């Protein structure tokens, strides 16, 4: 594997639970060979960010909301690309669309994992849901563990 392991916390800290991705990344320890970024959900920019990465870990809020704070780990290398995409805005692709597009054009790192944390509130200027905020330290620990595992097996 060439290239760093890239961890990207996706989301907007000003929109309640949408900020959990950046929150997790802020709680990561410094790890050799691991680069950590915050990014808004601009799919085109995300694709360029991870284009040269050796491996990728994305952390983002999910809007399922049945269990705020519940964490889902998705191995993106096992997921087929979507047949089509319907972005909610045409000023930017979302994370799912970016992953799908990257899979199609062959620029998703071979080892790519998504940690999706169920959120409940995404209102502008509102605080993070307590259950979502409480999930962040454990996700940060799991992300750090996974990043170290990726390095060890490279």
């Amino acid at each position, binding site marked *: 594997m060439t290239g760093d392991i890239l961890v990207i916390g996706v989301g907007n800290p000003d929109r309640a639970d949408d900020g959990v991705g950046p929150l997790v990344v802020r709680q990561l320890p410094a790890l050799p060979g691991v680069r950590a970024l915050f990014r808004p959900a601009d799919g085109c*920019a995300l694709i*360029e960010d991870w284009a040269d990465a050796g491996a990728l870990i994305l952390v983002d809020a999910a809007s399922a909301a049945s269990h705020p704070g519940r964490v889902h780990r998705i191995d993106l290398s096992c997921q087929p690309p979507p047949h089509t995409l*319907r972005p909610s805005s045409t000023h930017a692709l979302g994370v799912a669309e970016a992953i799908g597009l990257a899979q*199609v054009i062959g620029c998703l790192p071979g080892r790519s994992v998504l940690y999706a944390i169920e959120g409940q509130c995404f209102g502008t200027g509102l605080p993070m849901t307590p259950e979502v905020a409480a999930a962040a330290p454990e996700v940060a620990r799991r992300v750090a563990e996974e990043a170290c595992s990726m390095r060890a097996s490279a």
Partner: protein
Amino acid sequence: MKDSRTIRVDMLARVEGEGALDLEIRDGQVVSARLNIYEPPRFFEALLRGRACTEAPDITSRICGICPIAYQMSAVHAVEHALGLKVDGPLRALRRLAYCGEWLESHALHIVMLHAPDFLGYADAIQMARDHPDEVRAGLMLKKAGNEIMRVIGGREIHPVNVKVGGFYRVPSRAELAPLTGELMRARERAVQLLKWVSTFSFPDHERDYELVALRHPDEYPFNEGRIVASGGLDIAVSDYEDHFEERQSPHSTALRSVIKGRGAYLVGPLARYSLNFDRLPPPVQSLARAAGLGPTCRNPFRSILVRCVEAVYACDEALRLIEGYEPPPLPALAVIPGAGIGYGCTEAPRGICWHRYEIDDQGTLLAARIVPPTSQNQLSIEEDLRQIATRSLALPEDQLRAVCEHAIRNHDPCISCSAHFLRLTVHESADS
């Protein structure tokens, strides 16, 4: 016997915002094509009232996530005009550089991800990417290069935070700009590649006798400065806009519609800018345009994708020129001394001229604001395009007619949120027996 047909497009894909299109067809003729904007009215003009004039760039940048620089530039120019400030030298160059970045990222997104699929018969960019991965990668690379310029100059890509009245909060060093050079040179290659690719598309023969309106500058392809000119014979200062243009309310839309007084609808954006300023493009860019099949003017809205490619090449060249010649100024901004006045600013957003007027009191507080975005200025022309294009396409099956109408709208890269204002398509067809 009445025969009615309804075609409904619940949400127009690949444009920004929400709206609806109603086509009324009578006896095989499209008698009405109306864009109904359903987004809540944007109250930015009211939000600005009572705020310090120095807050204008930060507030107005929130009008749009894809063209924040346009609103910031029009805002700072309007405030500076009211206060008698003139930004020049390296600070002017940095503003122009930031605009290069915005044009690049906006045009790249539209060309590849939004518009190209229409010409090649794909439902969206991901389906197109299966067959054209290199071109999609080129578009993404261009967008990244544009975003990087905006990050370095503006502090971040979305809603930049470094722009202020009088200049910037912080200016970059030459060393901070240097890494952009390599990226922009590669971006330029990709932009030329995209132009050649797009030039192979099949373009419907649809020339329109638009009244074209754009900025025109004595020396430059326009970004921040110039006079407002029109192909029908107008050449006015930015401050005289209201004497010649007016906005009218429409009962079926929250967006206002603009006309030239006594003349009617007009068109702003790449076609207008290109056609009114071709001689301001550097000769190598002119040659590329001609090689792609463009003349010195373009009035076919389907060929707007070619013009955006040409402007993307120009933005790379201009950015490289500005970086090469940049010397950091001694101060990041001119001093701002509040004072009463009325100021006007008009700059070329990716989609066309964006005009601001502010009234300021002697404490520097905004008393009144007026903002005219480009997409609202184009609505009447877009509706007439739809009427004409739909008329030619009535024999098509419903799904193809819908696709043709959506394509006709995407020709203009509308930003509905900026205009307050995508897309449900309803066709009402009747025939008198």
